[in-house]
């Protein structure tokens, strides 16, 4: 419960690329082959540790359907990180990346860390998009890149954590103004408690030890 930072993430990309499955794998460590269509946005949260610090990831899993597009744009604001997902077995989902990227850049803050994810890496036989293509796209647009499989959990942890590491580094470099919540970063109660009363402080620390 007690965390040093809270990062807001959004997951975006075409419908059916496995956004909700990636989230479920990351938060619950399980895979669900059939998923309800996401309406608007769904949420997930998990605590991770970076550099010995507890970081809470608050993940907004948006609807991929075109008809929800204007609604999901509303949710972009205030995200520190974005996972832009495509399906390696469907070339059209890769082709749409530019539109998604434009959308994301337009509706969120310029410092947002974007991780490009080629999902369904377990379906090698049905692959339509080469790994090199993904890498090239990421390089061209200044993104981090990874191929994942929500089904086998391959690289799923890494995708979320590496994004967080990048954000954390940006904080250390002073790129992010952590006091501006529009950047999708909140300072946790642990940090805020430094000036709090003796009693409150001790309570907070003990609570931190109890969970996670």
């Amino acid at each position, binding site marked *: 419960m007690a965390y040093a930072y809270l990062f807001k993430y959004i997951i975006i990309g075409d419908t059916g690329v496995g956004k909700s499955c990636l989230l479920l794998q990351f938060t619950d460590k399980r895979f669900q082959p059939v998923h309800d269509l996401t*309406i*608007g946005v769904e*949420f997930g949260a998990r605590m991770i540790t970076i550099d010995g610090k507890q970081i809470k990831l608050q993940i907004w899993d948006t609807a991929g359907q075109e008809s929800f597009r*204007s609604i999901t744009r*509303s949710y972009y604001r205030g995200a520190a990180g974005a996972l832009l997902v495509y399906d390696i077995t469907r070339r059209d989902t890769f082709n749409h990346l530019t539109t998604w990227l434009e959308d994301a850049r337009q509706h969120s803050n310029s410092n947002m860390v974007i991780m490009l994810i080629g999902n369904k890496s377990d379906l090698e036989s049905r692959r339509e998009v080469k790994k090199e293509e993904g890498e090239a796209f990421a390089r061209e647009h200044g993104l981090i890149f990874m191929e994942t499989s929500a089904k086998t959990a391959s690289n799923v942890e890494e995708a979320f954590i590496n994004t967080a590491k990048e954000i954390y580094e940006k904080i250390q470099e002073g790129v992010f103004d952590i006091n501006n919540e529009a950047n999708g970063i909140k300072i946790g109660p642990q940090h805020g408690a430094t000036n709090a009363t003796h009693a*409150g402080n001790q309570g907070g620390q003990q609570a931190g030890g109890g969970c996670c």
Partner: protein
Amino acid sequence: MESLYYFFCLYANLKPQSLNNFYQKSLYKEFSFAFILPGDVLIMSDKDDSEIPVITEATSVLEGANCEPPENSESVDQSTETENKSEPIVSTRKRPESKPASDIETAEVFPVQESESKDVPQTGWGYWGSWGKSLLSSASATVATVGQGISNVIEKAETSLGIPSPSEMSPEAKYAAGETNAKDNENSFPMAGPFGVFSTISTAVQSTGKTVITGGLDALEFIGKKTMDVIAEGDPGFKRTKRLMNRNSTLSQVLREAKEKEELWTYNEVTMETDKKTHYGLLFDEFQGLSHLEALEMLSRESEIKVKSILSSLSGEELQTLKLELEQLKEAFSLAEFCDEEEEEKKGDEDFTKEITELFSQLHVSSKPEKLTRRAGGCCFLSPLVQARNTAHEWIITSLTKPLAEEEEGGKQLEAGTPEQLNKNSVEDIHAFAIRSLAELTACSIELFHKTAALVLHSQKQEVTAIERSRTLSQMTVALCNELSSLSKEFTTCLTTAGVKEKADVLNPLITAVFLEASNSASYIQDAFQLLLPVLEISLIENKTGSLRQELQVQTPLSEH
């Protein structure tokens, strides 16, 4: 109506009041009235229950406060008992409620409360709805920060506890004015909880002579001790303080010691409360209530911007017509039904699921229901709400029937005084579950509103008008708040049943906490409902002129920068 909420906060000790202020203003008569109020609240809220120990105790305290000492032997006995047993209880308590402290605070708002209790209908919903509404009117749109609000309030409650710091009290004592009024003081200490020490000391300090101005602390201490001796004669609940005074020769030392004890107690409590997860704000967040509220707020804000931009682009008759329609829409959001919704309450329990499902279908928001409701039995995001509610009800029923059944079997065992064995769920368990259920139900309700907003914005064709939808949504809000109200009543019934053997100063704070969180829940739901207004406004406008939709997206890009 706002004042009732205000009172509620005070009673629950959430708003630390300046005690110095109180010392200047307070009269002893107000003091004795203050003790009526907690009982009053319980009577209002638990009217259906004929035998609730809490009420009895609170009522007898009231008698004690108004009667002459010789006549109140019964209440004195009770307070003695409370006093003697309160110490071990302190360490197990979770909520930062302090009887005497809140009593002191309540005294300040007493006149308001008096009129309130007359106005408030004794029917459950009238009571709930009205203060829910007052919250509504006072609630700002800064919903996203609600979580912080909750924790702030709780932190405040944890740290302040309405207790004056001894350092503040000492100078107060030096300049204290007023004659020693032992007789009044006798009647002012019927309640002696964990803070009995404090309330007694503070009052004693206050009542210590106007005549002592230059006497210094020594003289004050002497008079203070004398005064306390006089007080103690008629007030058995004062024994502990007296004991303290005998052991420690100076008043300042007593105060310092009490402060240290207080700090330690606060610290213990903070730890325990967090550990045991009865923190409404944390639970609400855990059930993603905050996220949904934040997301809903985003949709609401975007819609508001759009509406404003459209209105500014219109003029003349067109603008007037639209304004008129928007006005009608606003009326549907005024929650007027809250007042005349009394029959609603008489409906059976099972009807909630049916009602909410039916209301939701009346919204006609899912244009492609087969796609949106893959799960059998309704909408995929309606089911958690219904499930949460049913789980809570089942839990209450088991919790209420179990001890009763066992009671019948072993009636004598009960008399022997082993409530722990009979009641599987301790009052703390019930309290924790109640808070959890309220948080979950509220989070689910907010999710429902958020999803509704998304679907309203999403659906292209409308089978029902925005005004019809607004009315349905307003009915949903009423239904949800009704449900919260009845749920909290059931939980408090559980608490009073399970807590027959508990002392009022253990049970009352738990009951208060349940009611308080239920009131918070109702206000979040109503806040969320209000956030839907701009969404329906834009939907009304778009429905009027389908072509506006495209136009609008060109005019107002979604981002502000």
